[in-house]
């Protein structure tokens, strides 16, 4: 069936071509939005569909399970919807001096969590896979949407959701305006003791600290067998394929040349065991992840249990969801390098992520960092339960929005020009109130679109099969 749209049909007789057209194949069973969703997702996963089809199918299955995983898996679609040539909903505040801010890339709640520096646990973004330089407005909109979506799953009313988004926007604008005159901009470090952190964040930091103290990554992912500590083997942790296992020594050596805290001593990087980690993440679910257990502490203290046994993760980094080709200079370095430099530019503490590094091996770009069970994220399912059970009240949600707004603003102020961003935020009314009002309205519409998209995606998956009809050869 062709000429699926009635308003296109008049062209056939105009050109006298009724008989010729019948093979173009615009799918009449698929509305145009579903076609766009399908094309956007399949386009990005094309190579993975050919090489790791079961993992891509698993990713789509996970995405179909709810709004939060769907949000996580569709950053690419979000940025496509907000890029040039789209509808009026794609209007984004931007301006001179604020077009090339280092973006976290995808600040949804499950990418925010606990990290550790020399002073202990602190709140920060903990996943920088999507980091890139671009207009700050994209990130504000995406972060606000992610916050709204997460809280809506806890049964929060629309009016309260709008109020929380407004609080987020206000917090962002206020912090940027405060930094406007400061050079260098202040660094925000939110710790357990911070009075303004709010209950949700304080609970999260306490949970992360405890797990880190207990070194849960060892108790959860390893076991001692015949006096030797080895990584577990189960559905999630499987033996590494060749040639990766054989090349691991060389990959490790190359990684150490970029390691944030320096190359370290050889004695601290003796490989004890290695596995491939499966079923992690959503957008990055099909990506390669290798967990390597090494002997020796990277820190000078030798008081750690298990004589300094620790875990490293090699995580495949693919292209970011942001349309970088339109942003100016195009590719610079590898994806691992992009993530590494973006992370260092945005980290809330100069001494956190000491083991961060990158390596490109066998044509695959990896980020390398330490595996820590204490690196807890804001688990949306758990948060929803606690909101529904009234453990967290309205004030806690407001505090969360304030903290997140300041966190995002702090990163942008450090990597961009706070004065330029402030000028853009206040351009229309001199106060930033219009920015907040527009943000609330736009994000509410974004969430409606996301909910509709999820239904379309679920339907497409049911009709077109586990790979959305992508060709796998």
């Amino acid at each position, binding site marked *: 069936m062709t000429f699926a749209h009635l308003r296109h049909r008049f062209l056939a007789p105009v050109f006298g071509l009724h008989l010729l057209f019948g093979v173009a194949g615009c799918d009449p069973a698929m509305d*145009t939005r579903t076609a766009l969703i399908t094309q956007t997702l399949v*386009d990005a996963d094309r190579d993975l569909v050919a090489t790791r089809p079961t993992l891509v199918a698993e990713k789509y299955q996970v995405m179909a399970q709810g709004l939060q995983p769907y949000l996580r898996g569709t950053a690419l679609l979000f940025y496509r919807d907000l890029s*040039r*040539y789209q509808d009026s909903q794609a209007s*984004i505040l931007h301006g001179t001096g604020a077009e090339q801010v280092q973006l976290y890339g995808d600040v949804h709640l499950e990418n925010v969590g606990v990290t550790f520096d020399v002073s202990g646990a602190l709140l920060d973004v903990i996943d920088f896979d999507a980091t890139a330089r671009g207009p700050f407005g994209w990130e504000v909109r995406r972060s606000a949407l992610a916050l709204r979506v997460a809280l809506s799953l806890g049964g929060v009313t629309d009016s309260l959701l709008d109020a929380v988004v407004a609080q987020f926007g206000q917090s962002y604008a206020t912090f940027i305006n405060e930094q406007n005159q400061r050079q260098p901009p202040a660094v925000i470090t939110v710790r357990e003791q911070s009075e303004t952190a709010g209950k949700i964040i304080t609970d999260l930091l306490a949970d992360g600290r405890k797990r880190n103290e207990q070194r849960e990554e060892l108790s959860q992912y390893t076991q001692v067998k015949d006096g030797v500590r080895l990584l577990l083997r189960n559905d999630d942790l499987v033996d590494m394929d060749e040639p990766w296992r054989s090349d691991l020594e060389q990959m490790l050596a190359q990684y150490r040349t970029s390691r944030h805290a320096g190359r370290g001593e050889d004695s601290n990087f003796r490989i004890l065991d290695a596995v491939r980690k499966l079923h992690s993440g959503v957008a990055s679910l099909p990506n390669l992840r290798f967990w390597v257990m090494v002997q020796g502490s990277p820190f000078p203290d030798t008081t750690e249990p298990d004589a300094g046994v620790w875990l490293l993760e090699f995580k495949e980094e693919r*292209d970011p969801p942001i349309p*970088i080709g339109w942003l*100016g200079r195009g590719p610079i370095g590898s994806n691992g390098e992009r993530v590494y430099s973006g992370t260092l530019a945005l980290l809330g503490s100069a001494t956190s992520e000491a083991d961060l590094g990158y390596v490109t091996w066998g044509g695959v770009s990896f980020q390398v960092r330490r595996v820590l069970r204490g690196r807890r994220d804001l688990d949306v399912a758990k948060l929803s339960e606690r909101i529904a059970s009234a453990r967290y009240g309205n004030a806690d949600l407001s505090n969360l929005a304030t903290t997140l707004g300041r966190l995002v603003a702090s990163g942008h102020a450090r990597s961009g020009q706070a004065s330029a961003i402030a000028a853009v935020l206040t351009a229309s009314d001199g106060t930033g109130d219009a920015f907040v009002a527009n943000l609330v309205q736009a994000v509410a519409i974004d969430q409606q679109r996301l909910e509709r998209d999820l239904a379309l995606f679920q339907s497409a998956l049911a009709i077109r099969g586990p790979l959305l009809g992508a*060709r796998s050869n």
Partner: protein
Amino acid sequence: MKRTIGLLYRWRVISAATVSLGLLIGMWTQNATANPMRPETGLPYSADAQALLPPQSTNSPGQLQGAVGPLRLGILGDLFATYRLSSRQDQLFHDFELSRVQLSGWVSYESLAGVNITVDTVRSSSNRSYIGIDGDAILPRLKWAFAETTPWKHYLSLRAGIVPDLLLQYAEASWGFRAQGPTGLERDGLFSPGDLGATIEAALPYQIGSIAVQVGNGEGLAMREQNNGKNVTAALRMAVLRSAAPDLLLHFLFRDGSIGAGSAADRRASGGITYASAKLGVGSIATMALGYRGIGDRWAAHLSTWFRGELPVHFALLGRIDALWPDVADQSAVQLRLIGGVAYSLPALVRLIVSYEGTLPFGNLTTQVPALTEHALLIQAEVRL
């Protein structure tokens, strides 16, 4: 019974097709003239038009050709070296770039059939990819690779393989400054230079033009086929002054197409005029896109108008305006691209071009990111074989 009728019907169709093919082969004469060196069309000029064309100078491109027995062979090539200074997205950036190396080799056999293989260069990472081959190396790729036959004098041409687009090459030939950058039609995502498929083109009587039909995958040069739909394009070209000016053409084109795994509509309706000669090129092409950049229900519009003219002492002027309405429902949202420059031809092989290119958004496009505004100065050397 129904089955028997069906089989009889099929047999008749097959028989008719076989007889037609036989007739076609019967009409195959020594007057047929395969024209694989011309990407615009497989149809050669008519004998009348050929007689009126100015003789090619020895400095014209495409002179590297010869004969081996019944075969004629030729090479066409060009190389564009670019220095670009641009202001965009808060960045003032300047770089040298080898913006294209293109090499066409063609062979024709006794003017009955021919082959064209054209290789150009691309950056090996796509515009969203950080990893290409050997970083982001410049790589050769097949741009066109088609077999061609002209079985009936200058009246009919068949092409199959990676075949050139039915409109874009006419626009390029008329614009004449591909070195400056792709035409607006290509840059704004309306047409791709080639596609895997086949083209049939027939000359209309009295040298008034031709009609062509192309069937292709629809995914252009960069992608394998993603869906079962095939693009069908029909083009009508009318030489309003017939053989007196065979390169003054009115174009009408309609493409029914789909793109991507989601089979999003990707239709085009274009109309315009082009004129191309050695000293002058002028043209204007208007396009409606029914389905644009993967949005199947989007109506977009585009108008590209250009001129080039040779001045005394080997100088030439060039100018172009591309206007894009990415959503015709919002007519105030327009992207305007302005190009103006001057060229100087060295005695042989090389042309130097200095041009300004500005991209300006209006209406809602001013609030969209990445920002559209760009100003660029290009200094280029074009080498043509």
